[in-house]
């Protein structure tokens, strides 16, 4: 049994001396976590971003002023929406085409007039196809404004219409009644209030940096275990396998040692990622140390199994060197390492449950954002261990069929 450990530890030593594996397994995930975290943090916490727009106010009337001064100029919006006033539609199109503004707002000449006289009118919004998210925000703001104006027209129009039809008011009175009624309408409050409730799966909203520390960290376990599995082939090439076989070590011990090496490399790598992200990115991996340890072990086991299976299915170092990282990236993505799985479409959500990544990520997130503690991760741990068992059995079976060949 001691030989199993010796072979494993030797593999770790060899890895540790190879600077390129250091880059692949430690520097790279840390950089990716940083980039992804920085990009998505403002989005996830919905920090307001600034939106540049251009406005062409041909109307210059009462209502266009309300929109520009009281809506866009309001406390809430004045720091978020930056307005540039322009003189022509061409100028707007030009600015949009340059990508300088997200949208251009055109208030036509007759806008205020049309509102007063009850004619149809529209505010035109020209959006940059590359900034449809920001343009969409502008669209909603302007639409809310027009709806507010429309509200007055509808209430006034409906009531006047019916009362006139019923001969309850004299058409001659109308001009005189309008301002009175309008002031009444002005103060009407919305009748329907919406109560938005988030059905929580987690007690806190995940921070992007923390989410990607988990997602990337888990994805890179597979990179690490693959690198470990490659050593089976490397050792064959360097003829050191031959040498181990000549020594009084059983085939079972060699295989066990190699698999232990795979596990150990990935374990170290992942622990280092947890450690570094905790210190440098201040990622809080949760309060339950026991839970974290259990999750680390079961995830690393599952991925070690996967790589063993992969090694048993490939023929050469090059093959596993090429398929391995590709698989790691695809699994990383499908398991929710790059994009939260709960935002997946149904089919992908289903498929993702076949990857160890999904369960590992879910488990870690539970520890980070739920109060359940160790007990709550039981399903994830069981699935991961189950996967580990299946992968290992198949992999070892196939590897033994092939024999740890020496040629």
């Amino acid at each position, binding site marked *: 049994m001691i030989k199993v450990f010796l072979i494993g530890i030797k593999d770790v030593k060899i890895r540790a001396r190879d*600077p390129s594996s250091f880059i692949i397994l430690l520097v790279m995930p840390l950089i990716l976590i940083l980039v992804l975290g920085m990009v998505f943090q403002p989005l996830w916490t919905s920090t307001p971003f600034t939106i540049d727009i251009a406005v062409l106010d041909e109307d210059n009337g009462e209502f266009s002023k309300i929109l520009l001064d009281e809506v866009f100029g309001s406390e809430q919006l004045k720091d978020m929406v930056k307005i540039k006033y322009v003189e022509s539609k061409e100028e707007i199109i030009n600015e949009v085409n340059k990508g300088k503004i997200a949208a251009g707002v055109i208030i036509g000449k007759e806008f205020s007039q049309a509102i007063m006289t009850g004619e149809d009118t529209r505010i035109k919004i020209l959006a940059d*196809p590359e900034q*449809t998210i920001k343009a969409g925000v502008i*669209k909603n703001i302007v639409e809310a404004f027009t709806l507010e104006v429309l509200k007055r027209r509808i209430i006034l129009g409906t009531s006047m219409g019916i*009362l006139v039809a019923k001969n*309850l008011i004299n058409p001659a009175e109308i001009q005189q009644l309008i301002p009175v009624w309008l002031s009444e309408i002005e103060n009407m409050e919305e*009748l329907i209030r919406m109560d938005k409730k988030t*059905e929580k799966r987690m007690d806190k909203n995940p921070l992007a940096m923390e989410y990607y520390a988990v997602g990337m960290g888990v994805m890179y376990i597979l990179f690490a275990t693959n690198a470990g599995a490659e050593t089976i082939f490397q050792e064959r090439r360097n003829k050191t396998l031959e040498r181990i076989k000549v020594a009084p070590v059983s085939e079972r011990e060699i295989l066990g040692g190699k698999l232990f090496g795979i596990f150990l490399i990935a374990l170290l790598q992942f622990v280092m990622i947890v450690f570094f992200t905790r210190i440098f990115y201040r990622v809080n991996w949760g309060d339950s140390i026991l839970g974290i340890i259990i999750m680390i072990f079961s995830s690393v086991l599952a991925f070690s199994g996967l790589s063993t299976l992969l090694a048993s299915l490939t023929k050469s170092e090059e093959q596993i060197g090429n398929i391995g990282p*590709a698989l790691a990236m695809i699994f990383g993505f499908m398991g929710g390492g790059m994009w939260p799985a*709960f935002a997946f479409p149904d089919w992908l959500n289903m498929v993702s449950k076949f990857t160890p990544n999904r369960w590992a990520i879910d488990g870690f997130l539970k520890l980070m954002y739920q109060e359940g503690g160790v007990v709550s991760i039981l399903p994830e741990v069981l699935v991961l261990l189950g996967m580990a068992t299946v992968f290992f059995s198949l992999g070892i079976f196939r590897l033994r069929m092939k024999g740890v060949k020496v040629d």
Partner: protein
Amino acid sequence: MIKKVLVIAFNSLKVTFRDKGNLIWLIIMPIVWTTLIGTMSTTGGGDEKIPVGFLNSDRGIYGEVFEEILRKEESIKIVAMAEDDEDKMRNSVKDTKLSVGLIIPGDFSEKLKVREQVVIEILKSQGNSSYFLEELIEKTAHRISINALAANFTVEKISERRVVLEEEVLEDEKERIWEEAFVKADAFFEPAPSIGIEYVVLSVEKRDENIPIGVEASSPGFAVMFVMMGVCFAGVAMVQERHHKTLARLLTTPTEKFSIISGKMLGFFLVGFIQFMILILFGQLVLKVNWGNLPLGVLLLVVSYVLSVTGLGTLLSVVVRTSAQAGAFAVLISMVTSMLGGAWWPIEIVPRFMQNIARFTPQYWAINGFNKIITRGFGITEILPNFYVLLAISTISLLLAIRFFRFE
């Protein structure tokens, strides 16, 4: 001399494509990746309708009116829930089987009629972006609210008037008038609100509804990323060639140094160029991605972009010592610069300072250029700046690569 350059380039092309592993990374992986991510981000844009749970406990009819108006929206699908299914709906929302859930209370109609505020509940799930749906529901609620206000106002005014005329208004007449006013008010919203907005996206043409927006956006982005990766991997091959000493042996043949270097670089360029063409063709033919109507412009961008990454790939191969290192850097550099350059997500969503960083990556200029052609429908003149910037990046990186080129 030209002939030797071509022979060297063709030879490294042969060596690159003969390696099965390279094929995985050059062709198969980008195709799988683009398809996967494309279909994922298609939700909401494609044929699939977003499921919205609707639980109506209203004793009156206006809950149903709410549902009817909502049903007219093409992008959503109403899933009606029975009154005692509230927990079931909550769970469905939690598991994202329903994008949002809506609960109309029992006194909805009653309260509307007496002009009292009524609360409807919107359930959403954590992390699921339902912003668009909330807007939609809010708009509908607003519409019903306005109608109800109009109806109440009308009834009030009629009562006032009748009091003046000393007539009494009967309760069931009030009811009738209320309903009539509601319908009349609602007519203001059909076919479109009489005061409203006209929203035009300044893209080249109306989208064909069958084209998944997700793939369309991700295809150029990921093509750009994987081409950089591909060229960098060709750089890895040159590290191997240094290791095999074939590069040094070339110097013993009567071949000019410059021919060797340009031959090698031409080889890298061709690898990237061929890969890009395959990915464009795959996108256009299989994923039905629209690559715009300016083949010449696309070609200019492809050529200048591939040139710029050729320089970077060569530089990489010159800087690193072992092919394992080169491989690691190839993936790292191409992924990170692609993320920064906007290949993974629209650049508009990232903070301003990161948008500025993006300008230092060739990916940004390529993607920006493709967008000019694909979404904005621009001509050659407008993409020339992108072309020039990419050429500048190419010149600098190629010169550096030539300066530091190592044969051993």
